[in-house]
């Protein structure tokens, strides 16, 4: 079980060595990172198989929690930890320079760490690591617009991190510990006032920058329109979900208060409305997808704000679905960038890409029996089960936003499949992009076929994630104070 730390350490090792290795031999440098990630994937898979339904705590350096840093291994954490190397491998920047490879490895390590860590400050460190790696990657393509976008993103995100740090300082001053399990024990007493909520609000806004939460998501269209599409897919698909995962962990373990969930709900609803509305008038595909991603993340927030097992189940379903669909859409959009009007007839010249785009768009809108529908259905049903007009309002907003989303996605689709545009302005899709997107589509369809066991698994994960007694007992094996 302790070997799980390799999933963080090895990519970092690879990141440190890749630039030097690439100086020695370029092919070696090129294959080093993917090889390490594949090994991490295999390792994590083995651990997940061995762990099964149980949970485990890993005390780093052998220092028993709460003194040292602890990793918390449960099915939720391992699910995302497994998704990290898989997604990074799928979206690996093969064409980049050695430093891009090493930054991508740093990104992978940080993301794995975010999924696994059970320590508040350690989460902050990994979050910052993720952020710094992504700033560098965004600006890597040397376009001035990308660098300006990266700088603006950096300023916003760093301000958010500082607020998050402020939140951590408040928590530490009040409780004197950073271990999430111990915080879970202390929270009902020490953090049960405005102070705890303020800390949560600060953390939510700080980490929400990466999670594309409502007021701090202005960077999204700028960055996704200028960054390389594989990176945009990684940021929209994976990184945002991990930020959400951190927020959800904090919410579940430490800040379980109705006010906290309400704050998430409100921000989520606003995010949905703003994102989908802005996407309605987007003039190019990558920004349309970017704004749509803001809207989808809003739904993720709303779903996770539902209390208890339902919330985790719904949020997981929406998040995993978006994790799969959005990167694939970005891959397809890579060759279809430019004005939407210029896409007339593009899908007729690239039928496979067009069909894949249609499939993903349908699932994003939530057409049964594609997985997107079930995710949305669980969310809506959970919202309606809550008392109070706010939740019902959120459900209505989701329904309306879905309509708007369907309208603009299908406007794009009719353009793609419509006649016209004889001049082959656009280069054909690369085999790698198409292959990756096809693999994602295969996963999506497999989700349709194996829906029943899949929902069973998600139920299990959700049940385990909300079980705080197990969480505390796993990470703090010593008898409770």
């Amino acid at each position, binding site marked *: 079980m302790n070997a799980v730390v390799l999933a963080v350490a090895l990519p970092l090792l690879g990141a440190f060595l890749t630039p030097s290795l690439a100086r020695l031999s370029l092919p070696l440098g090129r294959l080093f990172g993917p090889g390490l990630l594949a090994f991490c994937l295999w390792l994590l898979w083995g651990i997940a198989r061995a762990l099964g339904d149980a949970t485990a705590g890993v005390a780093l350096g052998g220092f028993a929690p709460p003194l040292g840093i602890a990793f918390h291994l449960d099915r939720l954490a391992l699910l995302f930890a497994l998704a990290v190397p898989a997604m990074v491998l799928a979206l690996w920047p093969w064409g980049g320079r050695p430093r891009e490879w090493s930054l991508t490895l740093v990104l992978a390590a940080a993301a794995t760490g975010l999924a696994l860590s059970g320590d508040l400050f350690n989460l902050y460190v990994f979050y910052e690591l993720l952020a710094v790696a992504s700033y560098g990657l965004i600006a890597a393509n040397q376009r001035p617009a990308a660098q300006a976008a990266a700088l*603006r993103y950096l*300023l*916003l995100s760093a*301000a*958010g991190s500082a*607020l998050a740090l402020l939140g951590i300082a408040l928590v530490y001053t009040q409780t004197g510990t950073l271990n999430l399990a111990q915080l879970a024990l202390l929270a009902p007493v020490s953090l049960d006032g*405005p102070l705890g*909520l*303020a800390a949560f*609000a*600060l953390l*939510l*806004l700080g980490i929400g920058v990466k999670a594309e939460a*409502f*007021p*701090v998501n*202005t*960077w*999204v*269209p700028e960055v996704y329109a200028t960054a390389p599409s594989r990176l945009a897919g990684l940021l929209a698909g994976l990184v945002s979900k991990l930020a959400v995962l951190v927020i959800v962990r904090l919410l579940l373990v430490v800040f379980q208060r109705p*006010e906290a969930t309400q*704050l998430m709900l409100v921000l989520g609803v606003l995010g949905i409305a*703003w*994102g989908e*509305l*802005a996407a*309605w*008038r987007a003039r190019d595909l990558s920004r349309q997808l970017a*704004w749509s991603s803001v809207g989808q993340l809003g739904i993720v927030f709303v779903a996770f704000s539902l209390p208890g097992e339902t919330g985790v189940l719904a949020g997981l379903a929406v998040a995993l679905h978006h994790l799969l669909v959005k990167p694939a859409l970005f891959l397809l959009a890579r060759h279809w960038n430019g004005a939407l009007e210029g896409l007339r007839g593009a899908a007729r010249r690239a039928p496979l890409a067009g069909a894949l785009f249609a499939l993903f768009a349908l699932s994003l*809108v*939530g*057409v*049964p*029996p594609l997985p997107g529908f*079930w995710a*949305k*259905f*669980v969310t*809506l*049903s*959970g*919202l*309606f*089960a809550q008392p109070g007009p706010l939740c019902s309002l959120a*459900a*209505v907003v989701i*329904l*309306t936003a*879905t*309509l*708007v989303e*369907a*309208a603009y996605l*299908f406007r794009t689709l*009719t353009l793609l499949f*419509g*006649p016209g545009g004889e001049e082959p302005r656009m280069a054909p899709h690369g085999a790698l992009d198409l292959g990756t997107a096809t693999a994602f589509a295969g996963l999506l369809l497999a989700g349709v076929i194996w*829906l*029943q066991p899949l*929902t069973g698994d998600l139920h299990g994960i959700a049940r385990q994630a909300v079980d705080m007694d197990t969480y505390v007992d796993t990470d703090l094996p010593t008898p409770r104070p």
Partner: protein
Amino acid sequence: MTPLDTLFILSACTLAVAWAFGRRPAAGGLIAVLYGGQILALAKMSGLASGALTMIAASPSFEVLGQALSWRFDGPAWFFALITLGAAFASAWFMAGEWGEGYRRKGGRLGLLQVALALNVSSMLLLLASGDLLSLFIGWELMSWASFLLMLSAGGVAVRWAFKYLIYALGGAMALLGALAWIHAQAGSLQYAAVAGLFATLSPGQAWTLVLAFAAGFGIKMALLPFHLWQGPAYAETPGPGSAFLGAISSRMGLFGILVVLVHLAGLDLLDRLLIPFTHLDARDLLGWVGAFTLIVPTFIAVRQHDARHLLAWHGIGQGGYMLIGVMQGDALGSAGGLLHVFNYATYQAALFLVVTAVVHRTGTADLNKLGGLVTRMPLSFLVMLVGIIGLAGLPPMNGFVSKWLIYRDLISSGRPLMFVATVIGTLGTIISVYKLIHNTFLGQLRMEHEDIREAPWSMLAPMLGLIVIVFLTGLMPGLVLDWIAPVQAALGLPVLDHSLGGVDLPNGGLDMLWVVGLLFAGFGVGALLFLAGNRHRYVHPLDNYAGGHFLTTEVRYHYSDDFYPGLMHLIGGWYRGSIQWLERALVSALDFLAQWSQAWFRSAQPALWLLGVTVFALWWVV
């Protein structure tokens, strides 16, 4: 393997064949035969129609999120499936020969059309077979998308209308999804039994919300009044046989949904209990009146159309109003009338769309101002249209008369004279507009460019003639269809109509079509005798005409088709101001405005200000 499995497998085979070979006109025959096979599979389930069986289940069933998904056929499903498959069979047959060849030659995508049609049929069967609300919704969405595919298969202007349809349909689907999610949240299950149980326990406010959501969701597919704008052009621009299929049955799926959810699960009693404040009306009256206005307004919009396909398509909306009125009456007579109208309407609407398509095939236009006098060149097609419009106008001896008579009769005897007047006004509009249709197409003078038009080929005539034979026979013997309707009524929990082969027997005067038709033909016979015996007839060439005392040369055709019904148009011109179109545009503009606003927000140069502001608000809120 149950007969229902056979049906689904056959349907899937049809889809596969359409996908693999559909683009070849030669495969059209095979596809039509496969639809025929599906009808035979349906015939094997005729126990549902005779009342011997109440339900046939399909073998596969799934469980998702703790919800069992199952499919089965019962009386209503069988009845609607029969109409669906019949319409598909006629359309496919029509496409099988020369029409498909010609469509392909003109650059149409025949394969797409065939696939879309087969997909429509399969998804409708799936919808009809649904055994719970979740499978109903899945079938509903699939059908919506399949219809979208069928509508845009013509390309060009059709795409715009198909897109509009899609937005409306998705709006309806979202209303349904919301209602479903709410029910799931409250009852924990979407099985019909649980839903019916939930309906019984709702407070009026909740019940109103649910009823309105369901009515809007299903009503959009039926193009009920505030949502009627999409249907006319969308159906009209669909390639001919596709529009025949859509016009005949597609919108009726909305009625099916209303039957299943509002009539069967919620129950008409519940609708009766939902009062509208400050009026004497309740939810059931509301739906009835929506049906009545749907009957009048689109029918008079149809009068104005100059394109035969648009005229027919607008018409179809109004006929849905009859069905809704009949079903909302809820007693044996009215509901039987409404359900019978579904069948009758499908037969003649399909025939009419097909004959218009045949005319388009021969002349290349459906513009009513550019046709005329075709009766001399296409006499059999004329016969088809004649029978069709008699049916559509609801005149004896065709089947449309029977269903409309049942509805009229029920409205009068249940004491709703105002609604009766509304239906009469609607019928008046129908008669006016179908006369415009047949006059401008077949009567009057033949245009010069149509001199060498030939009759439509037999591959197209045969399905049309078959349809009008059904129109006549079920008009003569409505009891044949009423036999199938009885189990439908029973399955929906409605009172069953007592009927005979020729019609119904009521305490104070029934209807026996055998007698009516007999007398009518006897009258025709007498008239013919007088006509022939009197020998006062004289043949006049259609071009032998005068205007203001001047003989016109044959180059100038004197066919009144432009500006048809000027007086009427002047009188009701105010109806066409399009307040609902205005509403539609206003909604889009509002969306545009909001979208601009939110984009401006994203482009604002001060994200940090928002971070600061929201932080302050969040802290203020918690402190």
